[in-house]
């Protein structure tokens, strides 16, 4: 496993313990913030999308599944 690169900068909203206990009020207060944050992340998403979307999606055929 040593050669595998796993380090990654901490992502927003990552909090392993308290995430289970957040109450719904604080959740809904942050929802529009999250939406704005998402807008800011779309550039980063553009950079990871595969090129040639049409061909890629067309070739995505998965037969023989359960």
């Amino acid at each position: 496993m040593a050669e595998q690169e796993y380090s990654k900068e901490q992502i927003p909203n990552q909090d392993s313990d308290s995430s289970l206990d957040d109450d719904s009020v604080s959740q809904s207060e942050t929802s529009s913030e999250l939406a704005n944050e998402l807008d800011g992340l779309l550039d980063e998403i553009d950079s990871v999308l595969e090129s040639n979307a049409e061909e890629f999606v067309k070739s995505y055929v998965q037969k023989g599944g359960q």
Partner: protein
Amino acid sequence: MSIPKICGIETEYAIIQPKLADQNPIHASSVIVNAYAKQADLSTNSGVAYSVEWDFNNEMPENDVRGLTPIGSLPPLIETHLVNAVLENGARFYVDHAHPEISTPECVDALQVVKYDRSGEKILELAMHLANQNLEPEEEIIVYKDNSDGKGNSYGCHENYLVSRLTPFGDIICHATTHFITRQIYTGSGKIGVEIPGLDSDSLQYQLTQRADFFEEEVGLETTLKRPIINTRDEPHADASKYRRLHVICGDANMSETATFLKVGSTIILLAMIEDDFLHRRIIFDNPVRSIREVSHDTSLQKPLMLQDGSSIRALEAQWEIFSSAKTYVENGGAEHTGGAVAQTIIQTWERVLTGLEKDPESLSTEIDWIAKKLLIERYADRHNLPLTDPRIKLLALQYHDIRESKRITDIIGLKKLIDEEEILSGIDNPPEETRAYFRGMCLQKWPESIVSANWDSLVFRIEGDHLKRIPILDPNEGTSLKLQSLLNRVNSPTELIAEIESSNK
């Protein structure tokens, strides 16, 4: 009486070689499983036992809990010639049909399932990386953790739960059907379009789940055709006089850890309540196959679902009712067999998620896959002024299921995590301590060269004098670190191990 809910999930990954005109997914799947398995030849602590064969002697997928296999039903075929690896964490990594598939080891609670599901993603990621190092650039292999190609083909993420043989299967069918139809409001991974034969795929913009379109029966044995909501495969991989294994085929694979946690956690508590005869009202749908699709097709979560008695119920209302029983059950001793402190966390998460779905679904955009994906593709479509049917949007929806660290969209948008990275990585090489996966994993770590085959409920050793010895572990609650750690530390060879086990059995 309820029994401990040992559980696990098995995920079939989609596989493509996007730069090849003629793709061979069976070959590609074999290449990545082999690439991972061959590490054993390169490293002493590699997390895999390469030479171990899967032992198919006891596999009987044609067994049906209803008794005889009905004429005309199609039991799943076992393909023994394809590649199998048994891993040092107790998991199994193999080629199933035309997909790479990984089964988690047997886990003791829902949080442990989340951990080993995430460790499984890391294993797939590393397998892809190792395979691609030896392939030409145009042969590059990519896997995705989804359940539908958008063209009418589906592949599963199956869940398994240990249940008591004493519990009438009719009770399980009744309550589990209601749960599987209505839990989709938080288990769905989201899908653009619809894949029901005869319907225009664009006639529905977006639905909650990847799988609902593919279910055509209420109860049955099939997994690839005429898929049933309740699967009746009766193959417990354990003492069949005490146990059943409920094999659940109708769920989505989740990227969100919260979704996996709640999918498995809510089902664990439901099954324990059924075993304890704790549920008194039966919510019986007039047409379960229609209802599973109606729930999936309704992003407003308002659709009334017709019940057999002529009344109707919304999926959220049914979930509140099951939740309410579950909360009372866990508060009154029900946590004992459903994860202890983890059961309390399931209840808290369940309540918070149902409240969010009712009041403000977008508040769950970092926890529930179908909501996260919907928001993502809508924002992206808005920004580039594209319809949801545009290939770039379909590509984005596909790449939502990308598990590669460098392209993991669900990390970019910040889906919440329940398991630390370190814990996930430790799950690649180390089995759960609380189930028989510990015995399997530790024996593979200590004596990989002596184990000639493995199955969920046995290991076959080659011992001194070239004898073969099969050690059955028919109870998933046995073989734990509590019971075996000192023995495994004390003995120096499989021969000694077997001698000790045989003398203690006398």
